[in-house]
């Protein structure tokens, strides 16, 4: 069983070289790699959540405010909707790609970008509001963790927006080449993943924080 030579092999029948091997599938390889990236990004958020969890005891806020005093869940709910709709729009864009409609894809991405920009805009506005209330990361460990988690997520969204811009340009310039399609698929995974992360942030940071 462990021997390398248990069966006689007919030298005329044996296949030593893969004559008709087509090579690997570029798009699926790329997508797999991007899944791996998503996994590591997930670990990144997991670590930030862990830090937030450890730094959200009442003593973590030192003498400063706790989330219950400054988060605005309804306001953030609008952000949530903007992000969800953005994902939806991106989904429409990918559906349009199946029919090969360039206009459909572009419209979808533009809509997705606008909604993503709304999300970022609201986030910036919210941060400014909190800062004007004296709620800054230097106040306490708890607030540091609050800002780290929410703003790392916002930074991801910002990167996603730049990526969309680049993709718009590439679609216009090159059309649906293998590279472009592969990147659009990766971007979809990225965008949906950020929305999923946002669900956790919304629930655990904003809603939970508001209630505790």
């Amino acid at each position, binding site marked *: 069983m462990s021997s390398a*030579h248990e069966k006689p092999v007919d030298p005329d029948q044996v296949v030593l070289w893969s*004559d008709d091997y087509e090579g690997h599938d570029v798009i699926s390889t790329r997508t797999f790699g991007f899944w791996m990236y998503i996994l590591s990004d997930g670990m990144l958020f997991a670590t930030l959540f862990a830090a937030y969890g450890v*730094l959200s005891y009442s003593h973590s806020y030192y003498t400063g405010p706790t989330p219950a005093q400054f988060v605005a869940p309804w306001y953030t709910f609008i952000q949530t909707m903007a992000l969800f709709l953005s994902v939806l729009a991106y989904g429409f864009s990918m559906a349009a790609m199946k029919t090969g409609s360039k206009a459909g894809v572009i419209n979808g991405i533009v809509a997705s970008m606008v909604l993503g920009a709304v999300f970022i805009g609201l986030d910036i506005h919210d941060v400014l509001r909190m800062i004007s209330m004296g709620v800054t990361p230097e106040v306490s460990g708890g607030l*540091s963790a609050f800002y780290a988690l929410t703003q790392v997520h916002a930074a991801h969204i910002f990167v996603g927006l730049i990526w969309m811009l680049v993709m718009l340009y590439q679609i216009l310039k090159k059309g649906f080449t293998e590279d472009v399609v592969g990147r659009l698929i990766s971007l979809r995974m990225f965008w949906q993943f950020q929305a999923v992360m946002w669900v956790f942030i919304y629930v655990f940071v904003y809603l939970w924080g508001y209630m505790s």
Partner: protein
Amino acid sequence: MLVNLPGPWSPLLGRLALSEIPYTNPILAPLFVIIVLAGIALVVGITYYGKWGYLWKEWFTTVDHKKLGIMYIILGLIMLFRGFIDGLMMRTQQMLAVGSGHNGMPLMGAIHGYLAPFHFGQIYSAHGLIMILLAATPLLVGIMNIIVPLQIGARDMAYPYLNALGLWITAAAVFLIMISLFVGDFSHNGWFGYAPIFELAYSPGVGVDYWIWTLELVALGTTLGSINFLATVVKMRAPGVTWTRLPVFTWTAVSANIIALTSFPCLQVALALVGADRYLGTHFFTAGFGGNLMLYTNLFWLWGHPEVYFVILPAFGMISEVIPTFSEKPIFGYITMVLASFAIAGVSWIVWLHHFFTMGMGPYVSTEFSVATMLVGIPTGVKVFNWTFTMYRGRLTFSSAMIWSIGALFLLLIGGLTGMMLSIPAINYMVHNSVFVVAHFHMMLLCIVYAVFSAIIFWFPKVFGFKLNEAWGKIMFWLFSAGTFLVFFPMFMLGFMGETRRLDWPFNLQWAPWFDIQEVGIAVYVLSVLAFLWLIYVSIRDRAENRVGADAWGTSRSLEWITDSPVPFYNFAMVPHVNHRDEAAWRREHGFSDKRPEKFAAIHMPNNTPVAIVIGALTFVIGFGLTWRIWWLTVAALVLTVLVMIYRSGKGDPGYIITAEEMEKMDRESRQKMDDGHAPLPKGGGYTGGTVTAYSAEVGDPGSQSTPPGNSRPLS
């Protein structure tokens, strides 16, 4: 929102000032001069011989996994040497400083020994970081880079460009830590950092910043690499390479890279939060304002323990390739070997707390982590038994690669057993932070180094087409082993005698003899370094006599041994069809070793690109800018990086095609260049085990032949 800095800062140069260059330091200043002179000599030499174009075209812009692997290994060896010099300095300091008197050298500003405490602190911090992340990791990644695609019959990694990027970002980290020698200083808080000493209030210099950004860069480079390895193994296997036919080394690469992919983000976050504390004034790990010191320790070791398994698993894989080859048997217990690798990878995630039992988490938590830690011993034990059973009744050849692997087993045994001792909280409270712990993990990390040397000797002929000198490989082994013994056994003793780690001044005179023995050991290590250099020199000088054929050792087993040595840039002229787990052994035993492809097909190869090295250089600038708080430089480099990435993504890489005719011609030439294998066959003694050996006529089944087929001679 930025913090108030202690000391001057200017918008143009940040914290950088002439006074940051330690030109009065009696060690660093001459070293600096030497390095600058050597650098000038190198540049002049390369220019004189007109090699810049060659270097740029063949190495700096390459995306070939073998060349990238070689560069990783060179980087790793250089850093291994740098780390060794650190070790030498620490040993010498302790030997000189031991005792109660004022025995220091005032000229050097030291009250004890020759190093001031602040300098000593930087040395041990840099030593640890360098050895684990910039020596061991690049060496292992380099070997995986070369071997994994070959073992699965791929032409390259899944993403060749990303592969180059990983290398150059790692190189950026190396440059950053090297430049900390001459510009500013390095962290003195140990390689893992202590909260809250690394906060700006207690470490106002740039040392901790160098530490942060060096670590962030390696973490980034390694994460990119791990994505690449996983995608390569999952997606790029040649036809016939089923999961049960993956060589054990490839399996360990998979398990190790799963660890890397999932654990390095923890490190990145932990250090980014330290950075936030230092740069933005947040309070993650401060002692007041609601910060949590223990959070840092947890986050760091949450990565730190999986990391130690990330480095040892590929080493296990290398041993698993070398031992069967020189035992002329398939690996014993393949399935359990694979399962054990994944068991280790899994368990490595639930033991991190054993690094700080003394922080005091209460009996229940400590017990859980103690038991979990001990569990690691089971799969590790399975592996050790499997290697032993592979050798049992094998036809052993004690070649230099083999003895390095066997040496690794001994170190693993000692390191594992002392680890078991440490995993018992009651014992741990006694010896935690003593040099006993230091001796434990040096046994483990040296096990890796042994495996790496074994692997370098083993695969060298595959990559370069000739063998390294056997005799000098063995001389180096014995010198290195003597050094290991003389340095680390006294260290266990000192641990029992109560010496805590990281002492710039060991006050207890009774320790003195042990320090002297250790210093002798260091001298022997120096000899082994010289032996290594001589080994390389002799081997290159005599390369003509040591040319090898495809199957360099005559008893090789896995797929990489069926392609030519040195491996041509396209790896395989035709993608192989794999019929057996030990494909090379299988082909040899059935007399197919000499068969070359008859039909050829056009292949598609990626183009070289300067983008990777440019981005690597930019990440270095980002790290340097952040360290010195030169904001304009950091932002400019960051924006440039993004622009270069967008540019590259727009340009894409169409690659190029090698036609079937060209391929056929290249294959012919490659074969002619290759020696037709008069490599002497091993003259193994021992028994011919029941089902096992490569050339056994005794087994008498119809497939086997009484004379070894192909380019090898019968056993005498």
